[in-house]
């Protein structure tokens, strides 16, 4: 039927893995407690509120104590024409009573709010999975817009799945009738009706959501009441509808987790909080220069509300101004931070070189998206690793860190601030659209466990005289705030003389300064942890080396294959540049190396270059994260 489906056929044998009904082999059963996890995908028109529905379902799932991972997948258009295939917005959540690290391969349940949503998502649905469709939206016009000649709900084309369709639109209208809303407003409550049904299906408490609706619509109590009525009606429908078979209630037990306080967090939130925490640990004020771009804008939004943490946010006239202002703020003694996505990062390249040359601290967050050019603004990719490591004119090395998950991004942001301020260097923090938008439970860390790394400004002439480009043991030059008497000096993008920082084009000086800049960044490797084996042992037949948001699928794939007794290991790299000191030796302990990446082989190239190892690529650039099964297939092939 669709290309998607053929893709599924390829991995059909493995499809049960992410789901509740998967039957464990005895070995697996011994390795883990019985797994119970379910993947649900909400899909509808971009105006149907699917992201909001997904977000609220995520919150109730988290409150129920399940582990979870989500994947919001929405169109670039703000309001794409209603009912069209390209206007479909989807939200997938994988939750369960065991550790969940991906948003799941194939959904067990697809909630489709119209024909277009059904058409573009049903291919991914697990065979035998459940489709819940709003038949009220399956009229002739909507069917035509989705390219259906006949209603799939009636023509038998969905025979591989279980289909439950009822007129959600009408049921919603009936439920909110007492509140006297207009037809359009009333239909907007559809997502709450659907959410009510989903909450019933998974035995979730409605109360937090009701509270949330009351707060959200505090100024429009009628809307609050209508939405609550729709929610309750959906819930009641599940409870009372006499539909035999597929619609049944599941109770997914809480996932075992370390004791502590938890919340859900998206990557954009955790980066923002991590930057604030980093600046506080460094004892510097933060200046954030940003320019709106998907999917990075959320960081600007979050930080602009945190003034009490000595954060100044500046929405600049363009990407270049955003980083240039951040550099100016760093020069004046604050921590300059800027953030963008691929195309904006490309624009910032020259200014990054200026920060390298002037040796000022700076954090550049890149929420990667599909490229090149405008590419896929709302889809995820890891294709800016080259740009991060090798971008910029001249020899312009700078440290690069990659976050592997929304929660991990918090620590990565702190790490970026630490390196930037301790080494007087710009640092790139790589995340991606998936990390930025996805939510996961986060054990709120105890901030007292983070050692401060206070910044020391130079405030008076040191013994032996003041040298603007003199260096400490880490090869970092002094940070002097303009306004400091006695330390007047000038900096700029022209090559500097060793020590004095005056303009100097002399051949030997450029050689020396290029070497110094490189040695400084290389030296960061002495101040980062050695690379650990993320899962498995330090020697073996096969290692999967990953970075960034491929963590979940790689980890799960390796875990499952290890449970089957395969000699496979997982190494996940946080410090992309410089790489950890021991990484080369570590990799040489394995017979084979596979590098799964959402690009055409960028980390693979770096590893080959640095260590002369036979790293093999496993690539995916469809704008969608890896599925566990895809990685497992690669492991099986490599070990066959």
């Amino acid at each position: 039927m669709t290309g998607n489906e053929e893709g599924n056929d390829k991995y059909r044998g493995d499809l049960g893995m992410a789901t509740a009904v998967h039957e464990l082999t005895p070995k697996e059963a011994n390795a883990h407690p019985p797994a119970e996890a379910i993947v649900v995908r909400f899909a509808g028109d971009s105006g149907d509120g699917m992201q909001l529905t997904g977000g609220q379902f995520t919150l109730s799932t988290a409150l129920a104590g399940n582990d979870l991972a989500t994947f919001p997948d929405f169109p670039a258009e703000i309001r794409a024409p209603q009912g069209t295939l390209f206007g479909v917005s989807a939200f997938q959540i994988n939750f369960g009573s065991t550790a969940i690290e991906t948003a799941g391969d194939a959904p067990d349940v697809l909630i489709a709010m119209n024909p277009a949503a059904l058409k573009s998502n049903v291919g991914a649905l697990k065979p035998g999975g459940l489709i819940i469709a709003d038949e009220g939206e399956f009229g002739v016009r909507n069917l035509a817009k989705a390219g259906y000649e006949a209603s799939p709900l009636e023509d038998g084309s969905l025979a591989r799945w279980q289909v439950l369709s009822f007129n959600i639109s009408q049921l919603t209208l009936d439920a909110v009738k007492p509140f006297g809303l207009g037809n359009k407003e009333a239909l907007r409550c559809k997502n709450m009706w659907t959410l009510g049904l989903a909450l019933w299906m998974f035995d979730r408490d409605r109360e937090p959501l009701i509270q949330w609706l009351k707060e959200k619509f505090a100024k429009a109590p009628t809307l609050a009441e209508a939405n609550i009525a729709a929610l309750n009606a959906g819930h009641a429908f599940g409870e009372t509808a006499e539909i035999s078979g597929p619609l049944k209630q599941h109770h997914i037990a809480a996932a075992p987790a370390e004791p502590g306080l938890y919340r859900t967090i998206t990557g954009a939130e955790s980066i923002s909080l991590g930057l604030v925490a980093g600046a506080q640990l460094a004892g510097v004020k933060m200046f954030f220069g940003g320019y709106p771009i998907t999917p990075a804008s959320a960081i600007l939004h979050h930080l602009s509300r945190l003034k009490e943490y000595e954060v100044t946010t500046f929405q600049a006239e363009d990407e270049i101004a955003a980083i240039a202002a951040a550099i100016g703020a760093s020069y004046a003694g604050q921590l300059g931070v800027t953030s963008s996505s691929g195309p904006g990062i490309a624009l910032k390249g020259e200014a990054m070189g200026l920060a390298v040359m002037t040796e000022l601290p700076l954090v550049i967050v890149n929420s990667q998206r599909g490229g090149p050019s405008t590419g896929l603004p709302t889809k995820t990719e890891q294709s800016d690793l080259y740009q991060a490591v090798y971008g910029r004119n001249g020899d312009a090395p700078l440290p690069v860190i990659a976050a592997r998950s929304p929660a991990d991004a918090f620590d990565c942001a702190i790490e970026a601030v630490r390196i930037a301020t301790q080494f007087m260097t710009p640092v790139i923090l790589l995340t991606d659209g998936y990390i930025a938008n996805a939510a996961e439970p986060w054990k709120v860390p105890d901030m007292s466990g983070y050692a401060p790394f206070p910044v020391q400004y130079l405030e008076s002439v040191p013994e032996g005289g003041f040298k603007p480009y003199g260096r400490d043991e880490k090869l970092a030059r002094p940070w002097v705030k303009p306004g400091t008497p006695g330390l007047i000096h000038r900096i700029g993008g022209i090559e500097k003389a060793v020590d004095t920082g005056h303009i100097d084009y002399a051949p030997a000086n450029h050689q020396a300064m290029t070497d110094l800049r490189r040695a400084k960044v290389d030296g960061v490797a002495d101040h980062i942890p050695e690379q650990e084996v993320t899962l498995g042992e330090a020697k073996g037949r096969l290692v999967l080396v990953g970075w960034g948001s491929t963590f979940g699928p790689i980890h799960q794939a390796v875990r499952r294959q290890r449970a089957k007794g395969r000699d496979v290991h997982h190494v996940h790299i946080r410090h992309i540049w410089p790489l950890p000191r021991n990484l080369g030796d570590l990799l040489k302990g394995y017979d084979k190396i596979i590098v799964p990446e959402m690009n055409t082989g960028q980390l693979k190239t770096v590893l080959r270059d640095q260590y002369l190892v036979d790293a093999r690529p496993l690539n995916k650039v469809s704008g969608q994260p890896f599925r566990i099964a895809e990685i497992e297939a690669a492991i099986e092939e490599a070990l066959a």
Partner: protein
Amino acid sequence: MNEMTSIPTSPKDWETDQEVRWCPGCGDYAILKAVQRTMPELGVRPENTVFVSGIGCSSRFPYYMETYGFHTIHGRAPAVATGVKLANPELDVWIITGDGDALSIGGNHTMHLLRRNLDCQVLLFNNEIYGLTKGQYSPTSRVGTRSPSTPFGSVDRPASPCSFALGSGARFVARGIDTHKNLPAVLKAAHAHKGASFVEIYQNCIVYNDGVFDPFTEKKAAPESQIWVEHGEPVLFAGGAKGLAMDGEALRLRIVDVVDGDWKGAGVIVHDQTNHGLAQMLIDFAPGEGGPVVLGVIYNHPRPTFERAVVEQNAAAAAGKARDLQKLISKGQTWQVEKQPHTM
């Protein structure tokens, strides 16, 4: 202002030990001297002063000023300066730029700096040519300028820096000439204005565009071709023998003769530096190649500055809110896990 500001300085205190590397005879030397002569009169301290520049001949300027200085990248000085000033509003920020730097590659930043009204001085050295890259025509070059990139003469119309500034929302617009004795007075007025002060300085490039401003800068031509305006004073030139009057019918300025000092009788206008419409007319006033050209402080009409607004809003938004990182990261709907973990 701290008390250090009262310690007097001399022009020498504002000179660096760096060898000045402009071509001999470049107008930049005269501007550098004028700035170094002006600084002691401003009651400011070198360590509280920052010169920020972009790229081009003029942008080497910070290296020659004994102040903090940042020679940034092409066109981006306004953006860097914005970060400097927002991070520390107490600093006295000067931006040194040229016609290519400010109006071509950096036009966007110049516009937004002026629109936001960041408190700083923007000195645009206009030599109507790209000097550092060896003489290509610039966005202010006149039509027909022959240069290595336009061997048959440029065909595009030039931008007017002051008109651009005024159109961008600048609240202080002035013009000066590199070698003219009035330049320090213009610089002083620019510094006194709180907000973005835009000063276009006609600067002679002795190598690639020598004499381009001669028709109105030459000593002999000056009285007839330079109209120095001053707030509250009649707009007179040619030793008081001529002035500018408003042609009410055509809605434009015209030159009138003033007999026996009776400028009132001749209808000569009095300069009002807060009049935006008048400023636009004075900037645009260009009856011919040889001038006359309007110079001095053309527009000076302050309003609140960007960095103050940012600082005040930040302070208001932060007021009464405690800084508690642990609380901040624990926000939102949370849940407590009590039991011990299973072995996974």
